């Protein structure tokens, strides 16, 4: 820039053009908002590890014991009792021989057997399958209901809003678990399928999201572009679904993940109390409830289902955290200042 002073005006324009091209080459390509969010999400290590974990668990649970009529590659069934081998101890070993273990082996019953000789791997996988189904269905139902109701209440305000707020108040008075238990018992008695239970859970967990979306919409509806859309004669549904809801996508996605994690834990609590999944079907909560007293004698019956719940819920929560960081526009500058926990020292160029 120092040499600008000595130039004539014609030269100056060409210099400006040269500088422009230089700038265009040196800086990154312009990106869409969703691209930026996606790239930020990819950089969030815990979230990426969690995603990989979730995909892995989903693939294993659905392919191993099969789903519905489709058979899986795992040979034992969760319904068949058998002879208890070696006290039902797990045959899985991961410790290599040079560390004093017996080498990597899966064996006949990797997670052990329960008291009547059922294969515990098949039982746990069946239970984990239910947790994942719950996660997907509750995520879809609660997100849809919460987003639509929240948006409608925030946009129209007035009595719709009043009714919504009173319904959310209802959930302060009736604890979520209590309402879910009563509805779960109705669903269990009438059909007994996991889809009925997850639908019911979806019907009671939407309120949190609805409140948040309402809050966002309340401030968004005062923006100019909404007035512009209204002035041009857009229908109300178009304003809500085209202009308002896409702008709350961050809140919706992030809270959907937390609702999913909550629903997985809620299902396991209900099954533990006996209001959720009923025998002979298995569920992770039900397995823990059955074997909580076997802790001293056969601890694996207690550990496996619990660990699977924790891993799934933890992965979903970290995924939500990654999404929140990705959607938060204030995160851009911050992230660089964050001292990496496992970062190696790098050579810093002078700016």
């Amino acid at each position, binding site marked *: 820039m120092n040499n600008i002073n000595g130039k004539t005006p014609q030269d100056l324009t060409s210099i400006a053009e040269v500088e422009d091209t230089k700038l265009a080459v040196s800086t990154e390509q312009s990106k869409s908002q969703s691209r930026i969010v996606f790239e930020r999400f990819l950089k969030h290590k815990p979230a990426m590890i969690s995603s990989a974990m979730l995909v892995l668990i989903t693939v294993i649970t659905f392919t191993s014991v099969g789903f519905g009529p489709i058979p899986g590659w795992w040979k034992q069934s969760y319904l068949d009792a058998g002879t208890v081998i070696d006290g039902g101890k797990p045959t899985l070993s991961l410790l290599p021989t040079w560390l004093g273990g017996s080498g990597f082996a899966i064996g006949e019953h990797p997670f052990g057997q329960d008291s009547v000789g059922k294969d515990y791997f098949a039982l746990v996988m069946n239970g984990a399958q239910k947790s994942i189904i719950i996660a997907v269905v509750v995520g879809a139902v609660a997100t849809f209901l919460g987003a639509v109701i929240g948006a409608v209440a925030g946009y129209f305000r007035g009595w719709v809003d009043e009714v919504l707020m009173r319904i959310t108040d*209802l959930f*302060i*008075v009736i604890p979520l678990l209590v309402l879910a238990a009563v509805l779960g018992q109705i669903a269990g008695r009438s059909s007994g399928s996991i889809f009925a239970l997850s639908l019911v859970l979806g019907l009671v967990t939407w309120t949190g999201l609805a409140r948040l979306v309402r809050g966002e919409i309340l401030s968004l509806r005062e923006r100019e572009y909404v007035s512009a859309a209204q002035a041009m004669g857009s229908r109300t549904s178009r304003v809500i679904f085209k202009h308002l809801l896409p702008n709350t996508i961050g809140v919706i996605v992030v809270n959907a993940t937390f609702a999913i994690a909550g629903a997985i834990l809620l299902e396991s609590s209900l099954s533990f109390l006996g209001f959720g999944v009923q025998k002979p079907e298995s569920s992770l909560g039900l397995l823990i409830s059955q074997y909580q007293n076997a802790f001293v004698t056969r601890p694996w019956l207690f550990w496996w289902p619990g660990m699977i719940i924790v891993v799934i819920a933890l992965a979903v929560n970290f995924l939500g955290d990654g999404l929140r960081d990705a959607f938060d526009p204030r995160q851009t500058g911050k992230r660089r200042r964050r001292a990496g926990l496992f970062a190696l020292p790098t050579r810093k160029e002078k700016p």
Partner: protein
Amino acid sequence: MLKFILKRLGSAVGVLFAASLLLYILVINSGDPLGDLRESNAENREYLMQQRIDYMNLEQPWYLRYLTWLGGVGKCFVGSCDLGRNINGVEVSGLLANAASSTLRLVLLATVIAAVLGIAIGVLTAVRQYSGLDYLVTFLTFLFFSLPVFWAAVLLKEYMAIGYNDWLENPQITIGTSILIGVIVGFLLQMLLGGSLKRRRLTFLITAIFVPLLLQYSLWLNFYRYPQMGPAIIVVLTLLLALSATAMSVGLKEKKVLYPALITVVLVLVVYYATFWLLNDANAWILAIGAILSVALPGIIGKFMGGRLSKLATSVSALVGFVGAGLTVLDHIFRAWPGFLDLKGRPIGTIGSSTANLGGGFWDNFLDNATQLLLPTIVLAIISLASYSRYTRSSMLEVQQQDYIRTARSKGLSERTVIFRHAFRNALIPIATIAAFDFAGLIGGAVVTETVFGWKGMGDMFSTGLHAVDPAPVMAFFLVTGTAAILFNLLADIVYALLDPRIRV
């Protein structure tokens, strides 16, 4: 303000009414209350069915049954509650009293512990954003968020309760273990206290040396079976508190604050001897009155001696008085502990809310309740601690970016004043709403916790009631927890309004 409270109360009662109707309809339609009798082979089957129909008014249509129940609840206002009979014909009102007291004790204690600790941790992690402590706490909160209550409860029962009880039979800590504990505590403490690298190193060294010595000394004293404190240690501790509280608030030179605090320390010593025999056989009333006096008396002293600093002097003296009283009570608890161990060899209880036929005096029963309460409270508190600390952290971070914080810093205020006077108060506002939701969540958690720990509380009433499709106990559960939730919510609203004047309009 009164109008605001009345308005909130009015809408809350309306919601409670609607919720009770909804729950009643759902519960009576959740199954067949005569299901088990229909399948039974008993000779007097018809008679038993007729009896149950009479108990539960099953021949009436649902709305009449609901109105009967509502009428019974209405009688509570004239002092004779009638909450109906359960499936076996037992009056629910009689069952409720015991169940409610143990459950509410559990939930309230867990809420208070979780809120206080959670907010403190949240503030600390927000102040030290992106430090090692922040990462550790963040990971732990995510872990606690993802923990199934019942699973964590069983783990605690097996490891903490049974492990501690076994250990207490013959308390031993090897030198290697105590050094390891010292190193871990030192590491955590230097994370917590922070500061420059030199200061952290010093904190670590002092703790890593001091803790193992303390552990070995306490073993030599046989402290874990025969704990002791005595007036000398109480006075030293309260004196240290008085000095440090004064130094931290205004500095030791300010006699207007220092003297009332020192007088309070003397008062604590006098009261220790004066109430010794009274407290040896105390009861709940004496403790409650004592707690109020321990705050009020030093407060008054501080107010009159404080002069222009009377506000500060009042709070410092009241704090010293309260802690001194707490230590005095702790001293009596320590004295009762060996006798209590004779009555109950394995102190940490895993089943029930109190031990049957324990005998012993007030302190023995107090300790019994406390040890039975310990594990369920830890389980419940851990889980809601996570949400409190998380929300406080994000709320604090939000507030710290505000302009008035920058103004406060640029005025040259100390970092402590900026954090506690300016940032913390404003950060508390959103927490008040979370507290209400969290309380409802904790009651749900209590249902699960009571099942694991075998309490005969409200949660047990609810789950056995619902299994049997028996509306009376379920509705009694709802009535108590719903009312408690509303009161708690109202309290949160009032705190909210006090913190944020804009709400009151």
